[in-house]
């Protein structure tokens, strides 16, 4: 079972990262949220970002599809500068149309699902391909049926989002993102708004997607999931990357005292009744 034909990017130079984040800073007024982030992500890699709330991990993720504009620094997707272009004097903002085109290759799943409440489940998945990719209605419908089947919601396709559980809504949101056939998927605390018993169904879909070879950036509080699925785990604190490495090392033998402190606090919480 595969989610989409383009889940695995065309074979490129293995050294060429799909995402390159270069000394990215983000300020909100006086608040310095990201303090110089450098990060490369290879095609097909699954990277989990963990850290305490307020560490900047969600802001970083939102920068990767330009929902947040970095105050300084650049992000490249497949070698293409995101959201900006080289002007006569420094970098200037990209126009609406070009930015929208760049975003079509990047799927995003939000903590609060953000399904379109005025559209049915199927229409939620179809609207991107129809309006943005100009795919025919019939083809978009076929794509939607296929994807909804993969996330186990084929029979819900004519329901409205409000009639679905949180877990079902989030699975529709994943299908909606995949309908654009992205090369990169961003997950922003995709299970944090869910009742505990609904977390598993969403994580299963994400794990399946990972197994299919999708490149994924996952901001999460689900440590077990991060450990099982990721190729690399990144620990952020205070707007910086404190430590990163393969999950076995980061969870098994964290080097930095802040990483150890965070993991101890989180794992303690998990073992509490």
């Amino acid at each position, binding site marked *: 079972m595969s989610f989409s034909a383009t889940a695995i990017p065309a074979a490129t130079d293995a050294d060429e990262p799909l995402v390159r984040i270069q000394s990215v800073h983000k300020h909100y007024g006086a608040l310095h949220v990201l303090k110089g982030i450098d990060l490369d992500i290879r095609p097909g890699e699954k990277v989990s970002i963990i850290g305490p709330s307020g560490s900047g991990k969600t802001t970083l993720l939102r920068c990767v599809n330009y929902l947040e504009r970095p105050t300084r620094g650049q992000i490249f997707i497949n070698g293409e500068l995101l959201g900006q272009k080289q002007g006569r004097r420094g970098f200037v903002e990209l126009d609406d149309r070009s930015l929208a085109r760049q975003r079509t290759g990047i799927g995003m799943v939000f903590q609060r699902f*953000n399904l379109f409440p005025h559209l049915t489940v199927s229409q939620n998945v179809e609207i991107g391909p129809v309006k943005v990719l100009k795919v025919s209605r019939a083809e978009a419908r076929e794509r939607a049926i296929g994807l909804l089947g993969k996330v186990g919601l084929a029979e819900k396709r004519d329901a409205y989002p409000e009639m679905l559980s949180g877990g079902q809504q989030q699975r529709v949101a994943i299908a909606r993102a995949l309908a654009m056939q992205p090369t990169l998927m961003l997950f922003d605390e995709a299970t944090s708004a869910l009742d505990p018993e609904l977390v598993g169904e969403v994580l299963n879909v994400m794990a399946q997607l990972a197994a299919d070879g999708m490149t994924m950036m996952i901001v999460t509080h689900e440590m077990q999931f991060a450990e099982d699925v990721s190729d690399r785990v990144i620990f952020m604190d205070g707007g910086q990357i404190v430590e990163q490495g393969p999950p076995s090392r980061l969870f098994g033998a964290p080097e930095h005292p802040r990483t150890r402190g965070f993991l101890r606090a989180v794992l303690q919480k998990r073992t509490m009744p």
Partner: protein
Amino acid sequence: MISPQTLALIREWLPQLLVAAGQTLQMTVWAYALGAVMGLLIALGGMSRQRWLSGLCRVYIEFIRGTPTLIQLFLIYFGLTSVNIVIPGFQAAVIALGAHYAAYMAEVYRSGIVAVDSGQREAAQAIGMRRGQAMAYVIFPQAVRIILPPMTNFAISLLKDTSVASLIAAPELMMRANDITSEYYMPMQVYLLSGAMYFAMSYPLSLGVRYLERRFGRGRQLNLNLA
């Protein structure tokens, strides 16, 4: 209670008043259409990132809201003649009322649009929609449920406000009522009859508002079948 003579007179006035009521209805529809379209443009302009455009829209709204309808009507009907622009009464009334209501409608559009959760715009952008597409396919269809009841209320007050057009002798119900009154000097009968006609036209709209509020007040969504 009503004397046969009065009844005979009413029968004489009724056809004229019905024609005039039709003109009032036409004036209402045209002015409403103008206001609804202008109002949307002003609302969108007001949210533009172009400072000059949003500023201009802001000024327009404040100017219209801060001056009487009658002044605006007289400026268009009498005032423009001094620069050799002569607009017939009916059209002048449509323009003045439409432009007036546009300012209020713009505020309603704006409040409806900003009431839609910002996550909706982000989700639309995340699947590659441009700003205009996000507005047309995602934001506006959801804003409609907030916008619709006050917009229908505007139709009711606009219908009654067309009576100011009698002051520039534009053909409509109020002017016809004034004419008949001055001819027969029976103001009680004439204005009661005309009032009943305004009511007969506005009450269905009132029922419409109540229906819309019931329909959308419970969180039900409007499906415009856009996808």
